[in-house]
């Protein structure tokens, strides 16, 4: 496991779509470094060959699929009541232009 850098945290913030100002970022770097140092005791575990099952699940390791049928959600309100911007049955968002830069 490696020592996390400020640039890596900035990259994670970008991947996670989080605006973080410089001052906050400066505080986060040592905290995340400390947490990663703490979790590095997992190095003692050899992950190779371990079963990748789901020991916390109750009685099955594969979740059942629902029947492929359309059922209306049971809603006690309208989507436009909770949406930040909603028009003619659509959620309205700002333009997509800058996403081309990614």
């Amino acid at each position, binding site marked *: *496991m490696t020592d*996390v850098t400020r640039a*890596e*945290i900035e990259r*994670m*913030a970008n*991947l*996670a*779509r*989080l*605006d973080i100002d410089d001052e*906050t970022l400066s505080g*986060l770097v040592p905290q*995340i470094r*400390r*947490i*990663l140092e*703490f*979790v*590095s*005791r*997992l*190095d*003692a*575990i*050899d*992950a190779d060959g*371990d*079963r*990748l*099952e*789901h*020991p*916390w*699940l*109750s*009685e099955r390791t594969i*979740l059942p699929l*629902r029947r492929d049928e359309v059922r209306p*959600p*049971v*809603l*006690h*309100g*309208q*989507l436009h*009541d*909770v*949406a*930040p*911007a909603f028009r003619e049955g659509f*959620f309205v*968002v*700002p*333009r*997509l*232009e*800058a*996403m081309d830069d*990614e």
Partner: protein
Amino acid sequence: MSGLLGQAVELARRIEATRASGLNAAVTGLDHQVLTEQVARLERGPADASLRGLAVAVKDNICTLEFPTTCASTMLEGYRSPYEATAVERLKKAGAFIACKTNLDEFAMGSSTEHSIFGRTRHPEEPDRVPGGSSGGSVALVAAGAVDAALGSETGGSVRQPAAFCGVVGVKPTYGRVSRYGLVAFGSSLDQIGVVARSIEMAGRALATISGRDPRDATCADRPPVVLEPTPPDLRGVTIGVPREYFPPDLDEGVRAVGEWGIARLRDAGAAVRQVSLPHTSLAIPAYYVIAPAEASSNLARFDGVRYGLRVEREGADVHAMYRATRGTGFGPEVRRRILLGTYVLSAGYYEAYYGRAVAARARIADDFRDVFERGVDLLYAPTTPTTAFRAGERIDDPVSMYRSDAFVCPANLAGLPAVSVPVGRARGLPVGAQFIAPKFAEARMLAVASVLERLVDREQELA
């Protein structure tokens, strides 16, 4: 005034009293309209409903129709869910009053109920201390006597840890025992709705009401609700394992003394008590702080300013900038920290080193429990927390120190096992809890054994 109306008015008064006192456990009141609607619902319902007239508060990360659901976050400030959680729906069908919503660490990420847009919840006895978390509001409200029971949620011990700090009962069911439908997702492989009450009996009644299969949650077990067992006269024939890893040399002396006093009472009741080992216990917190943030980073991606909740949109900015501004503004420091951590441990080049190892550690922890239960141990008994309630502000700038307060509770979450914290006594004036951890779906037996201990102890007794 009808009996139910009188009860509801008195309930509203008690909740307001906790708000006025600065406890800061309830984040809503019970206003006149909600109160009268609920009275009308109960009057229409059967007079013999199992929880008729009982007041149940609901942690504010569980969806309700009567109140907003905010997760104590700017991201969901004022948000009203258009549907309600299965657990809440079942409480209402059983005749309960939904009393109010309760404070929590933002999105249930925390161990002290200090990370909340509503401000911190006080410990009900010592206001300069924390009630624990993240279900600190639910626990403090029950401990203060304002409600009969409350729903909390556990991802890594968030019901049992505060229950131990505040001297009440906290139950974490088997993963899959209670539907997660309507519980705002944090770590989906860990999350489970739990129950807080002042007695095992009341906690059991609430658990029996909310448990059972639900087609709206694919991870909910295809099993009927919990059927409670009567409290046995003694514990003859019951084997209780005490894991040595939960009594480490640096354990708080008061917690040790109360925990050992509880062991003596279990022996008095006729239980066979033997020491066992869960050798991978020390890996639980590191594994949890990889797996839970990883799942949170994915689950919380839905809060993007598009469909509901906060949107922060700057003049001329595109949709990508809107996402970043919304999420940067809407999430508080601990949530941001965990999203970044989760994104990091899942990113290319680090996935195997962190997430792969954490999942492997989780399997070993589950195997440890399975091994002791296969060797004839019926239940495990251990302290719930390494210390009593700590002072507010003491750990807020040191996340690892905060995380360590969950060292004894989070292994059961990783393994998906049921557990209950019971108040056993006091150390230096503060409540101390002990927990029973049981095999999957053994809640009824676990609660029956815990109720024997509950009967044998005086939770107010100063033991250290």
